[in-house]
Every structure is written in structure tokens, then in C-alpha cells.
């Protein structure tokens, strides 16, 4: 069960308890149940926060690895790819006549190619080597399957 499901269950449980309190003890009691639960939640969350501050995490460096910043060309590439999809849609619905799309499509494709090349150049040699090995391995197993 994920943390989010657990939280949802907890909220439903508290709502149920508050409703029961409301039915048997009056509206005021229901509100008190909510106040109490909220306070418990606050104490627990703030305690976890302080605990996190005070603890030491030896794997922190590893955990932080995926947070490598994106660079501007990633956004530009996504925008160009979106523009190509848009172009297809606009030709399909007649906003751009088939004869007019050629130069725009050529321009967008050239831009996408340039950005892909930039991205490729940015990738570190060891990562490229790793990618080459993965692809070669995949190709080898595919060819083995075909042969067998």
C-alpha cells in the first residue's frame, strides 16, 4: 500500500470516527475529534521534520543524483517536437494548406536535429559508452532470437 493510499484511508477513518461522534455525542464532539486528530497530525509531522533535520543520511549523495538540472535545450527540443505535432494537426484540420507546410516542417525538423546533436554532445563519454553497450547487448540478443 502506497503512502498516499494510507493517508487517504486515514482521512476516511477520521471522517468516520467524527461522524460517529457527531451522531452519538453531538456536533460539538465531532468538531473536537477533528481538532484532536489535526493536532496529533501536526505534532507527528513536525516531529518527523525535526527528526529528518537531526538525522544523518549516508546515501544522501546517491539519492541526490537524479536531481541533475535540465538545460535550456531540453525545453527547446520539447517545444519544437510539440510544434511538429501541432503542424500535423493543423494540416489535418485544414488550418495550414498542404502546400504551405513544407518550409515550416523543414525548418522545425532542422531545428530538432540541431538540438538533438547538442544534447548528444552534452552526454558524457562514459554515459555514451554505457548506452552503446546496452544497445549492442539488446541487438545481440535480438539477433540470437532470430537465429534460433
Amino acid at each position, binding site marked *: 500500500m502506497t503512502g498516499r493510499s494510507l493517508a487517504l484511508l486515514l482521512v476516511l477513518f477520521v471522517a468516520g470516527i467524527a461522524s460517529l461522534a457527531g451522531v452519538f455525542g453531538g456536533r*460539538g464532539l465531532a468538531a473536537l475529534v477533528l481538532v484532536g486528530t489535526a493536532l496529533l497530525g501536526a505534532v507527528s509531522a513536525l516531529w518527523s521534520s525535526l527528526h*529528518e*533535520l537531526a538525522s544523518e543520511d549516508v546515501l544522501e549523495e546517491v539519492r541526490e543524483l537524479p536531481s541533475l538540472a535540465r538545460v535550456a535545450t531540453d525545453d527547446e527540443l520539447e*517545444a519544437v517536437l*510539440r510544434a511538429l505535432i501541432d503542424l500535423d*494537426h493543423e494540416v489535418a484540420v485544414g488550418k495550414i494548406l498542404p502546400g504551405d507546410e513544407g518550409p515550416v516542417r523543414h525548418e522545425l525538423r532542422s531545428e530538432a536535429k540541431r538540438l538533438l546533436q547538442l544534447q548528444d554532445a552534452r552526454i558524457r563519454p562514459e554515459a555514451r559508452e554505457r548506452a552503446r553497450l546496452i544497445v549492442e547487448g539488446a541487438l545481440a540478443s535480438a539477433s540470437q532470437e532470430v537465429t534460433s
Partner: protein
Amino acid sequence: MSWTLPTFGTAILLAVLLAAAYTFSVSVVAGVTGRLRLLVAARHGAYGTVALIAAAVSSLAYAFLTHDFRLRYVARYSDRSMSLGYLVTALWGGQDGSLLWWLFLSSLYIAAFVASQGLRERRQQPWILATLMSIVGFFGVLMLFSANPFATGVAAGRADGEGLNPLLQNFYMIIHPPSLYVGFVGCAVPFAFATAALVTGELGDRWLLAVRRWMLFAWTFLTIGNVLGMLWAYEELGWGGYWAWDPVENAAFMPLLTASAFLHSTMIQERRGLFRVWNVVLVGLTFFMTIFGTFLTRSGLIASVHSFAQSSIGGYFAVYMGLLFLVWSGLVAWRWPELRGLPATLAQRKAALGAWLFTLLVLAPGLVAIHKLALPMTAKVALFALVGGGGSFAATELVHRRLAGGEVRAERPVVESFLSREFTFLMNNWGLIGMLGVILVATLFPLFGELLAGEKVTVAPPHYNAWVQPLGLLLFFLMGSGSLFGWRKTSEKALKNAFVFPVGAALLVAIVHGTLGARFGCAPFVPGERLYAGPLGAALQGFGTIVPILGTSLCAFNAAVITQEFATLLRARARSGALGGMERTLWFFGLIPGVFATVLALATQARRRYGGYVVHFGIVLMFLGFTGKSWSVTREATLAPGASLELAPYTLTYEGPRMEVDASKRMIFADIGVVRAGKPVGRHSPAKFIYKRMPQSPTTEVAMVHAAADDLYLVVGTINPETKVATIQAHVNPLTSWIWLGGIVMVLGAVLCMWPEPAPEESRVFAYTRSAAAVVASVVIGFLVASMPSYALHDPFVRASSAAAAGEAP
């Protein structure tokens, strides 16, 4: 110290402030150091703050439910006779509680943000949290030191409470403020994203994509809140209209304009990389307008019929807005090179900051100097605008150019052609911001008048209408025509093809309306009011005259554009084989399921576009309703029992007065038999309610007959108890129901735009099931929203009125 509820509540508010300050600090350190552990601590701190706010709201609810009249706020806004629904409404019925409610809704957004974000966007997340916590901190300070809902006082009022203002005891008031607050508060999340992007310098498209759904959500609730506010004014205030350009109404409307501008301009940045500065400014401006609106409503700065009581919190808001402006504009100046695509060198940064300082140090004293000039007020306002605009231009262009050594233009994307969607979107943005400017200046005019000329001048609704109508109709035209253009450049041939049908439809409607309109009571030209002397006055009056025919033609134009867009889409889908069996089947069942099936089957980008068209269709329906206002008729007559009043197509016969009494009030009804075009439509009873607690302010209870063509709106003025003669005011408001229908359609369109994308791993069968479920859910939501008026009829007041009209005990 005894541990009582007031002390407990105040202690929780203090704990909220401390928790927010703690989370803010941890977030900032996490942002500066980039340590993941600190971010996790900040996230937990945010959850803790949220839980404390929930505890504060629950405590106030407890006080209301147990009638703890030691609390000044509880005593002032509730009494023992109030039902559970109105006790809950009282939570936000007054100033102090509404601020706590604001904070509570903020906390829900914060919880949703933290839960949905996980550990993604690790560079930006700490700054987003810090921004959100700073907002929580401001409201915490405000409540602790100036508007504490847990405060006690000798002025607590009666021992069993004063009760909620009767005007607020209306169904729409239960749901209108929360909806509006959800919209207002929701604008804080995009603002926090933008702040984080400015701080980290990651100003690409990603923050914009992340923000769009949050802004759309806030926009949806701003729309719902505004429409419900109109409904409340229409049903409860008894003056026959739904919008009076009151400062509080304007405060709710202005963020909607900037949010709409942002939702359109964001598409341009996403597709073309244009308008980066503009988008950041729009997000900031939208949030600023929500704070400014709250300030207007609560400071007592501008008189309004439904603002909160005047209090000391205006000063806090003024300081906060000043800080907000300084920090935000300073950040924009610091990131100016990145935003404009310039090299991010120290020289460029210094130049941008120099230009910013020039604006602050030269512009502000300049404005003060104008204030002291002995000139007429209009000239002063014009000079203000000139110096403000000229100063900004001088700062951004001349000073920056000088400081940057001439290097201010960078190679960046530009609008390539006037015949492009981005250009029409730009026009649309200018129109929206122009409208914001007009409304803002008119709203603040009394303040300007007092500051500049020492005289208080209020701007009456006809003046607003005279200026807003041309702008609104221009925007309405741009809304339709913009959809007909493609991105980058549209060929003239493609444009001609696209415009033929909509222009044809508009011309056809104009001809039909021009020739037959007057015969059916909807004249194509209605003489406008002359408000100003000179050519400007004549031009505005002339425009006001053609508003009816222009309105109907533009409605036809826009409806044709939307129809054409959907027809073209369906043709394209059929050609490419994408039109699935289920989609065809749903089209067979009608327009609404068909549109939903098609839009939900589209990829995200296209779905947003076509969901947007559904929103546009809602706007078309609303404009149709607004146009109907041109033909509204009002009659006031003093009638003896048995006398009749003719108001085509209605005949009203006054049957006599009737009085009912219940535990809290006396109700005096005027029973009126209504006949529409020869057919009786029942007895309707407008009334005056006189509350025991507030006998000096009787409330007006309207009686209405709703129809697609028009609403009959009845109000009773006075009734002579001896002669039984009554003064009746009757309004016939054509097409008003279309406004509410338009609001529902807009919300459904927004839901379509926000609908989540199926995950790539989602199976085809599940995707179909979800689409079907979405259609059903949307239709159910539509029915629920549409049935709101019938819920309203279960409102105790309306029920009392109806029951009394039927001769039953209330």
C-alpha cells in the same frame, strides 16, 4: 491562565505562525544548499503547518456548533436559532473568519502540492514551499495581531448571539464565497512556482507546464465564484440586475481577467518560446490582484454595498503588497537577462537592476510631484498614466540600453506574421489587460479623486458599461477569430476558407435581427446614453446604440467558429480512421455526449484546445444573456387589490397583501397572479421580511418566473396596511437564463481541459472505460450544477415564501 477555547484557539494560531516560519527557514536553507534531507524536513514541516491550520478551523467550528458566545466573532455572526448549514456559512461570513477560511483553503492547496509533487523538481520545490509559507505567515500575523477570530470582547453583543446578516442567509452565499476563495487562493500556487523559477533561474517551459493545471483549476473556481456571486445578487438584492460594477465584484473579476490572459499566453511560450517576461508578470499580477481584491474588500478604502466592516487590517495589506511588489519586481529585474534571452553576465544583471532602481527612484517621486500640481483631476490622472507608462518604458529600454552598453536585443523568437495565432493571442492579451486597466482605474477613481482633487467621485455603472462594452465585444471577436488562425503563419487562402462560414453566419443573423428584431421585442438598435460631451461621448453613445445587433452577430460568429472547428476535427478523425466505435455511438446519443467523447479521446494538447472551445461556447451563451439586458423593461406601479399591470408579454394582477410570522421574522407578501401571453403561470409573491433582530433593515425577497426567453422579476416596495395598496416593481429581463447556462458550460469545458492524460501503460480497454466514466461524471456534474437553483428553492427563506404563496404554513 485558564485554558479556555479563546486561549486555545489563539495558541493554535501562534503555533501556525511558528510552524510556517520554521518551514520557511528550512525550505530556504534546502533551496540554497540543495540538500535533499532538508527538503524532506521542509515537506514534513508543511504538512505540520497544514494540520495546525485544520485544527484552528475545527476549533472555530466547535465554537459555532456549541454557541460559545464568549468569542466575539461567534457572537456577532451566529445565534442559537441558526441551522447547521448557516452555522458553517458563518465560518466565513465575517472578516476574521473569512481570513481563517482563506488560510484553510491555502493549506489544502499546500497539502495537495506537497502530496502530488513527491520529490520531483528538487531545485524548485524548496522555493515553492518557502513562498507558500511566507503567504501563510502573512495571514498568521494578520490574524494574531489584527483579526483574531478567537478574540473575546465586551462588544460580543447579545448573550445568545446577533445572528448572521439575513442577506447572507441564502443558498448561493453558502457556496459562492468558498468557490471564490478556492479561486483566489489557488492563484498562490502558480505564483509560488513562478517565484521559484525566478530564484533558481530555471525559466524554461517546465515551470509553465507545471503551473498550467493549477492556474486552470483556480480559473475554474474564479469563474464559478463570479457566476454564483451574480446569481446571489440577482436573487437576493432585489434591484433587477446581476452585476453593478461594485468594487467587491470588480475585485473578484480582475484576477479572472489576468488568469485568462495567462492561460492563453502560456500557449504561445509553450509553442513558440515567446512572451517569457509577459507570462511571469501575468502570474505575479494575478496573485497580486487576489491580494489587492482582499485588501479592497476589507480595508474600507472604497465604499461598497457588500464589503466587510472597516478595520485596521488595511495597513497590513498595504505593507504586504508593497513588499510583494518590491521583492517580485526585484527578482524579475535580477532575472531579466535570462527572461529576455540575453547573456547572463554581471553587466547585464547590473543594467537590469539599474533600470529597476531608476523606475523606483524616479517614477515614485514623479508621481508624488504630479499630485501636488494645481491641475484639474482628469489632467492629473492623464499625467499619472503618462509618467507611469513613460517612466517604465524609459527604464526598461533607455536606461537598460545605456547601462548594458547597447546590448539589449537578443536573438529570440518573434511573431513572424500578423496572420498568425500568436498575434491574435497577443491582441487578446492586450484586450484583457486593457479591460483590467479600465476596471482598476474606475474602481480606484474615488480614491484618486480624493488624493488628487480633494473630492470624492464615484464611477456609476453606465460609465463602466460605456468603456467595457467596446472592449468586451472586441475581445469576443478576437476569441472567435483567433481560433481560425494557425501558428506561425496562415496563408490567405486558408484564412478565407476558415472565415467564410462564420462571417456568413454573422451576416445572416445581423440581417435577420435587423429586419425582424423589433417585431419580437429585441430591437437591433437601442439608443445609448450620452455620458460625456464631445466626440468621445458621441462615439461611445453610438457604440452603445449598436450593441444589440453587434452582440447577436458576434454570438453567431463565435458559435459558427466553434461548430466549424468541431466539424473539421470530426472530418479529420473520420479520414484518419481515429473516430472509434464508442465515439460514433456517443455522437448518436446527442451533441453533449458526442463532444465529450471526442474531446476526451484527443491527445492532451488537442484536448486542451477543444476543451477551450467548449469554454468559448459557454462565453457565447453568456454574451447572449448580456445582450438580452439591452431589451430589459422595468415598470413600477402602485396597485390596489384587483388592479392589473401590463408588461409584455406578461399581465400581472395584484391580488392583495398577506402576512405570515415565524420564530425569527414577519413576512409580508404581495400575492400577484401572473399570466404570460394569455397562459396563467401561477401566483407569485414578492415579499418584505422583517427580522426581529434587525427590524430597522427589512430585506427584499424577490419572486421570479424563469423562462428561456426572459425572466419576470417581481419586487414589492411598500404595502399600505390600511388601504392594502402596494408599490410593485416588475422587470422583464430577456435571455438572463442563458448566462447561468453559459457558466455551467464554461465549467464543463474547463473540466475537459484539466482531464488527466491516460498513462502510457494504461490498457486500451481501461482508457475507454475511463472515457465513458468521464462522460457520465461530466454529465452528472452538469446536472448537479444545473439543479442548483432548485436547491436554492429549498432555502428556508424561499421555501417560506413559496409555502406562504401556496397558502400553507411556512
